[in-house]
């Protein structure tokens, strides 16, 4: 499942890049993300993501690895984990591309590729597509709001 969106912020590209490495502020933009820990600075992290649809709850401990960091243009990361209750594997590949649209304006392109295997993957595919779209939209909107508070 691929979800793509983009947001434009009135913040210089370097400031947006710096924000992406401010782990507490960045992860605050990810819906349901908690218990974030740095394992190896700028390379490996771990976190827990929770979500709920109707009576169904999901709690996935994720191992996050930075795959590529080309400052201040492109960041690629992979998060992977397994829900202990339903034994479903969740894998997320996130690519963020920062396009300098002017000296003070940056467009952040967000591309997410989500794979869910196991019972969740077969029982609720259409629901996950919708939740995925909604989560990426919330992430983009939260990023925009957080970056809007940056002083250019």
């Amino acid at each position, binding site marked *: 499942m691929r979800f793509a969106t983009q947001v434009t912020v009135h913040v210089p590209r370097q400031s947006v890049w710096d924000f992406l490495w401010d782990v507490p502020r960045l992860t605050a933009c990810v819906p349901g993300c908690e218990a974030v820990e740095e394992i190896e600075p700028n390379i490996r992290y771990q976190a827990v993501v929770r979500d709920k649809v109707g009576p*169904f709850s999901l709690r996935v401990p994720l191992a996050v690895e930075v795959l590529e960091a080309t400052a201040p243009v492109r960041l690629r990361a992979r998060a992977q984990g397994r829900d202990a*209750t*339903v034994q479903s594997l969740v894998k997320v590949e996130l690519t963020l591309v920062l396009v300098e649209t002017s000296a003070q304006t940056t467009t952040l392109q967000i591309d997410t590729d989500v794979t869910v295997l196991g*019972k969740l993957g077969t029982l609720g595919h*259409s629901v996950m597509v*919708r939740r995925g779209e909604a989560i990426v939209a919330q992430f983009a909107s939260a990023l925009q709001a957080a970056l809007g508070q940056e002083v250019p």
Partner: protein
Amino acid sequence: MLQPFVLEEPTSIHEAVALRARYGATAGLYAGGTELLLTMKEGLLRYERLVNIKLIPELAGLALEDGALHIGAITTHRRLERSPVVRTYFSTMAEMAAHVANVRVREVGTLGGNLCFAEPHADPGTLLLVYDASVALAQQGGTRMLALEQFFVGPFEVALADDEILTAIRVPALPAHTAAAYLKYGLLERPSVGVAVAVTARPDQVQEVRIAVGCVGPTPRRLRDVESLLSQKDLPEVRATLDAAGALAGSAADAVTDLHGSAEYKSYLVGVLLRRAFERAYQQAIGGDTGDAARGSGTA
């Protein structure tokens, strides 16, 4: 494997709502169990308690009351399919019920359970929307009626509080010179698209059209913008507008690409089924006075 749980077996609505008030979301309601037990066995849902509501006689009624069909929450799809009252006065509902899932599901699955589980790829909710159906929700303080349209909140999510139970579904009779049709299509066990249409018409004159689309979006929904395109028009004008109405319905259906097909494919199917369902309902509407449930009475 099914995890252990405590089984409560109330024999009245009064006892059932007391259990709901006491245990809230930790207690699941168990009727047919066709969806609940499957998801519990898979470990997707866990409840400390199940409240078996099948032993409550008040939830088993199926009768015409003041021109509307009263369906007790634990009425099975099979009973709706076979009931003489439903087959006579709400024949489209009987036909829809006859094609829910498979005969094993229809034999034990209940209408109340189907609506409360709110699995997006289900048939009954979509058709019931064009009947302007409502649901009775009981709690310790009393019972409230809620339009079915407002009952569906999202996928697997309904406006049922943790201390409430759905006791009945009220389905008003269609007006005179009105008929309904429900068509669905799918490649998997559950339908990919379901379209319900109710048409009030005289020969060559369409007075009112009601349209609901299900399975495609997160919940079944009425498409009132599309309805207004087709209502209060001569038949040739309606037929000339059906393609545009189908396209509008397809986009308003809010389809997503998933295992049931691409969003484009499902949107296109909505238009196709809308045209076919309209024709079927129209022909039945002009064939006689089909809104006759108001004249009947009795129980199934």
